[in-house]
């Protein structure tokens, strides 16, 4: 374990140091002139970069750890082992510095790493292979602890968040600015009438609901008209013939809805969301704090009628866990389609909806932009309900893959970081490499117990999800699918969305070709 730790430390600190140095020099700017005076000025400027000092610190620590390693092991082991830094450096360059590593450069990484390992390793190789195997095994054991820690942290974050929920609910009440609820629609979801009606039953003094559809033939139109008849006391408007503006049809409709909305606070929810009568009060109360830029909400499944939708529901539990971890570490920096509440003022600051017209993950992106402006994105105290449609496993896998591809484009570092949350894969690797059958069983058991415990705390106790309560035991199966979907999301760049095929470029959807018969 000592070998793995010191090797990991040398590689990590060295790579982070080099990446910090690169970042510092990129901030200083490209050097064009090479006279001694000009170079001197560049060096002086670089001294003002805090990243340079971080780099110096990290590289000094790495160098000291390298010397320590040399005092423990022969150079013929240390140099080949630290060739791992080429792989770590390439990954850091791609995900942190956003460099574009072509297949040729990746091939260079592989050849150089192998070459350094071979050129500096002593023969015979059997001992070195044994060393490499031992170190790799120890590294995998150490890494396998990360997802378990992540699950436990998620459970703690959920416990902390939901413990404060009642206090937040008490605070809600007297801050009730007028609200426009915006509902872009396309087709009908399961339980659509009940979903829409839940917004008409809000215990809230002044609000309106605006729906938008592309044309009169949309099956949602008669449902909205019935709603207008059934709730005459609520201001409900239906906008038809919403003109398609960008590749993201939903954002196109939101542009129109925001234009037509009468009130200063906008609440946008997906069409399959159902809410409790105190939903608006609880969401708007959070805006009492002027530093809050947007509010979003976790979600839970009302019903999941098929195996695919059960997987979807357990997936939402997983996502909620990750969101709560993100909240505990750095605060929420995104919003979710379940609820995006934002004031007109903040919306104007991020340029309105128009910049999101071609974005794939529009809801995520909106929250990110609000957070970038220095405002907080908060979670509503209660989750909203969603009626998961009966879907086949293939449909579930396709839309999860689409979501992962979208995440890779908007937040590549976060997408790559999912590696350390893949509990089932790490537990399987640790179980295979464990020295005895009992140790293998212990790894698997530890994963199952901690994963299910975390799922119980987040999904059952926190979200109160009835589907998760019944099907919690399927969570490891969700993790199994999720791991392969995550791997696939590195290789795939095309997504199918509402019958059209797109490729993604920096989060923007570029249409490729249209397909018929799906949607």
């Amino acid at each position, binding site marked *: 374990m000592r070998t793995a730790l010191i090797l990991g430390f040398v590689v990590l600190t060295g790579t982070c140091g*080099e*990446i910090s*140095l*690169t970042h510092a*020099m*990129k*901030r*200083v*700017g*490209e*050097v*064009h*002139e*090479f006279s001694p005076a*000009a*170079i001197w*000025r*560049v*060096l002086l*400027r*670089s001294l003002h970069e805090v990243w340079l000092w971080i780099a110096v610190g990290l590289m000094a620590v790495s160098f000291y750890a390298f010397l320590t390693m040399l005092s423990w092991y022969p150079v013929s082991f240390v*140099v080949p082992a630290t060739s791992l830094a*080429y792989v770590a*450096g*390439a990954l*850091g*360059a*791609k995900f942190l*510095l*956003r*460099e*574009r*590593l*072509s297949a*040729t*450069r990746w*091939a*260079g*990484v*592989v*050849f*150089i*790493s*192998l*070459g*350094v*390992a*071979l*050129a*500096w*390793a002593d*023969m015979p*190789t059997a001992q070195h292979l044994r060393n490499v195997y031992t170190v790799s095994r120890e590294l995998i054991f150490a890494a396998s602890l990360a997802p378990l820690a992540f699950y436990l942290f998620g459970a703690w974050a959920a416990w902390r968040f939901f413990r404060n929920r009642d206090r937040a609910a008490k605070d809600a009440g007297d801050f009730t600015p007028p609200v426009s609820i915006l509902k872009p629609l396309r087709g009908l979801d399961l339980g659509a009438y009940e979903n829409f009606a839940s917004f008409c039953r809000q215990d809230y003094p002044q609000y309106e609901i605006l729906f938008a559809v592309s044309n009169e033939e949309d099956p949602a139109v008669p449902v909205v008209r019935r709603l207008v008849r059934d709730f005459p006391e609520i201001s409900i408007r239906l906008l038809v013939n919403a003109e398609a503006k960008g590749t993201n049809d939903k954002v196109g409709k939101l542009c129109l809805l925001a234009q037509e909305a009468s009130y200063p606070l906008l609440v946008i929810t997906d069409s399959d969301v159902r809410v409790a009568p105190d939903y608006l009060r609880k969401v708007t109360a959070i805006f009492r704090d002027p530093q809050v830029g947007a509010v979003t909400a976790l979600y839970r499944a009302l019903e999941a009628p098929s195996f695919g939708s059960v997987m979807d529901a357990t997936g939402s539990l997983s996502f909620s866990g990750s969101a709560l971890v993100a909240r505990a570490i750095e605060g929420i920096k995104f919003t979710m389609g379940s609820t995006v509440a934002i004031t007109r003022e903040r919306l104007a600051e991020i340029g309105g909806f128009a910049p999101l017209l071609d974005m794939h993950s529009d809801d995520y992106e909106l929250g990110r932009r609000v957070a970038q402006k220095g405002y907080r994105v908060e979670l509503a105290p209660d989750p909203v309900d969603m009626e998961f449609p009966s879907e086949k496993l293939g449909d579930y896998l396709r839309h999860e893959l689409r979501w992962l591809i979208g995440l890779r484009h908007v937040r590549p570092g976060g997408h790559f970081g999912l590696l350390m949350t893949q509990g089932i894969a790490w537990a399987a690797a640790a179980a295979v490499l464990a020295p005895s059958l009992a140790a293998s069983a212990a790894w698997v058991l530890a994963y199952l117990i901690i994963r299910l415990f975390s799922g119980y705390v987040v999904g059952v106790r926190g979200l109160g999800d009835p589907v998760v309560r019944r099907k919690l035991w399927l969570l490891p199966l969700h993790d199994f699918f999720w791991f392969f979907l995550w791997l696939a999301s590195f290789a795939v760049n095309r997504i199918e969305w509402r019958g059209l095929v797109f490729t993604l470029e920096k989060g923007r959807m570029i249409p490729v070709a249209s397909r018929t018969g799906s949607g």
Partner: protein
Amino acid sequence: MGQIDSSVKTLKTKTYILLFLMMALGSVGNTIFDKGMKDLGPIDFSSGAAIWQGAFRTFTSSTIWAGICCMLLFMVCHMLVLSWADYSFVMLFSAITYALVPLLGYLWLGEYVPIARRIGIVLIVFGVFLVSRTPPRTTPSISNQSVS
């Protein structure tokens, strides 16, 4: 189009010049350190006074200071090249030193190079050749206003 070709050529030229300077300064600096420390003999760590004496001898050695100067210049070249080139390009390209050291040892000093090491050298050279086929910069350039 001609302007783009010319700027790409300039970028490549200055990148390669600095990379070769880095390699030369790094190798020379390490060799000088090696020679300087061997000339000084083993440092005695038996007492605090002995350590201070060793440190004094080290930092008053002109050979060691020549090595420090080489390594400082190496660092300056490294910083300059990173102001425009990709880290992944610079890092991989500078791996050529791992191949050069045993190769120079074989060519100049007649050291024995076992077969696995020869294969390793070939792999490194081929890897660096592949990297040299990729553009040195894949991220947008930020101009240094005060310097340009």
